[in-house]
């Protein structure tokens, strides 16, 4: 006879067939020697794990890390690895060149401030104005004057301000 149940089956007068069958299977005894076989497999596994462990001279109990030379060599190796790794990265670093000229984007004129197609003409100096000399009378004298001295009136006209 089964003892009183803790998990809610105890109070049922008519236990269903399924529960009876499952209870029957759950109550089957374990095979003989199960514990010994499990312990043996555990021993084998722990023995196999020792093969993968560090050799005896490198186990933590031997304090191999207390030797000053070993410690210095380990520290130097770490420094070399870090420095070498950073040096391997540095030459491949690409710096972006500074722009030589600043290109401003084209901004379209806003409404209400357009130039209405007006063209600005810069202020320039007016050219010299040459007075017309009457033909026939002063042709010879003008040729002479051009060779000897410029005319006083022409000089004044050439220097006329705009």
């Amino acid at each position: 006879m089964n003892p009183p149940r803790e998990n809610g089956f105890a109070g049922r007068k008519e236990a269903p067939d399924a529960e009876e069958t499952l209870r029957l299977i759950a109550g089957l005894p374990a095979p003989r020697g199960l514990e010994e076989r499990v312990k043996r497999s555990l021993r084998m596994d722990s023995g196999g794990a020792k093969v993968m462990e560090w050799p005896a001279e490198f186990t933590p109990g031997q304090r191999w890390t207390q030797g000053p030379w070993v410690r210095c060599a380990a520290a130097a190796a770490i420094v070399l690895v870090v420095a070498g790794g950073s040096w391997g990265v540095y030459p491949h670093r690409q710096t972006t060149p500074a722009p030589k000229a600043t290109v401003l984007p084209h901004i379209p004129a806003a409404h209400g401030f357009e130039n209405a197609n007006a063209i600005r003409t810069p202020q320039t100096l007016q050219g010299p104005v040459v007075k017309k000399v009457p033909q026939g009378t002063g042709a010879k004298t003008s040729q002479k004057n051009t060779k000897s001295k410029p005319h006083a009136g022409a000089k004044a006209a050439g220097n006329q301000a705009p």
Partner: protein
Amino acid sequence: MMSAGQSVLTGWMEIAPSAVHDQTRREAEEQALAALVDQYASTLYRVAFSVLRNSADAEDAVQEAFLRVLRHRDSLGEVRDHRVWLVRIVWNIVLDRKRRAKTRPETDDVNDLARVLPANGLSAEQRTAAAQHHAHVLACVDRLPDKEREVMVLSAFEELSSVEIASVLNITESSVRSRLFRARNLMAELLNHSRSSR
């Protein structure tokens, strides 16, 4: 006199526990593990067998469970209830195996069930009839949804309370009760349907 750099290196790389302490601790862990095997191997086997229904597979599952414990023996001290913890481990193992295998359990065969189940002074004919009945019931159990089937299988273990079943399945106790209720109704329907169709 030790230089400043040397003293920093010494503090950085020194390993504190001694070899003697490690040896003592390892022996204590092995003894604790052996005690767990003695105490709970039978329970774990029955849990595994109830799912796999195969003696060799169930024993393999128990061994794998304890091997997992061996590999995580450092966390043994943090476990509050070893029994529930071990049942949860073996439960996950057998569910995983059953999912992977997807094969018919060996004891679905009526002859195997007749060999495994207790005779209780029955005649050969009665034993065969009982085995056929149990095989039919187990076939109906296998047709239940996973959640309901798992609760029903675990609730058949007298040593597991509903709180412990909830802990094994990582659900609440009320979920255990509601799933068990649904499982019973579904099983009644399945069995009635099969009886009426005969």
